[in-house]
């Protein structure tokens, strides 16, 4: 597989090295894949939070909808 090079500043390099050790990752590709996975998970959490409705209010409308339908 063809590999690509990316440049990061010193501070990021130190942080990513520490993370690689913490994750016991075999390569920086693995570290980045994990970071991307976590980012997606956080984004989904934020999206789900934004559209969540208080249970009692949702139940009230559900009950109205179910009772008003013919």
């Amino acid at each position, binding site marked *: 597989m063809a590999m690509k090079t990316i440049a990061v500043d010193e501070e990021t390099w130190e942080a990513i090295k520490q993370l690689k050790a913490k994750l016991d990752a075999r390569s920086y590709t693995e570290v980045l894949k994990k970071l991307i996975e976590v980012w997606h998970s956080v984004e989904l959490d934020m*999206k789900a939070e934004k559209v*969540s409705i208080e249970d009692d209010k*949702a139940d009230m409308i*559900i009950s109205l*909808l179910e009772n008003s339908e013919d």
Partner: protein
Amino acid sequence: MRMLPERIAFDPVSFLKITRKQNKEILEFILAEFQVYIPLPSVNSYLMTKVLLKGDVEEEVKTLKEVFNVVEVSDQLMVKMAELGGAFVKKGIVPNFSDLMTAASAILTESLLVASDKKVKRYEMFSKYGLDVISYTKFLEEVESLVEEEARKVARSPL
């Protein structure tokens, strides 16, 4: 083995059920695994609830569009609704407008319609015109199986 297709749509009641706070984690999983289409009657039910909660409705519309695929009114949707409605009128049946728009939206986006348990039978009348429908309870059971499958995959992965 995954039994559910990649595209799903929610009817008004099932959409309100899946957006209840207690279902947040299931919704996260659904957003990761499926392309979710929301017909306008379901959007309307959701927004009515937000009005009840004194939310900023314009902002809520933006948020909904960021998170889901809202099935907006288009020429194709109007044509599909007219075709479906016309087929029933020929038989002497006038379908409920909300059901008609919900069914037409699901057919048009080629998505599986998740319908409330009470209404799934009513949507089945659209099956011969191309609607795939599943009850909310059955859908949640299938999603739970998928969650277990994913958890097994994660347990086997190296990191």
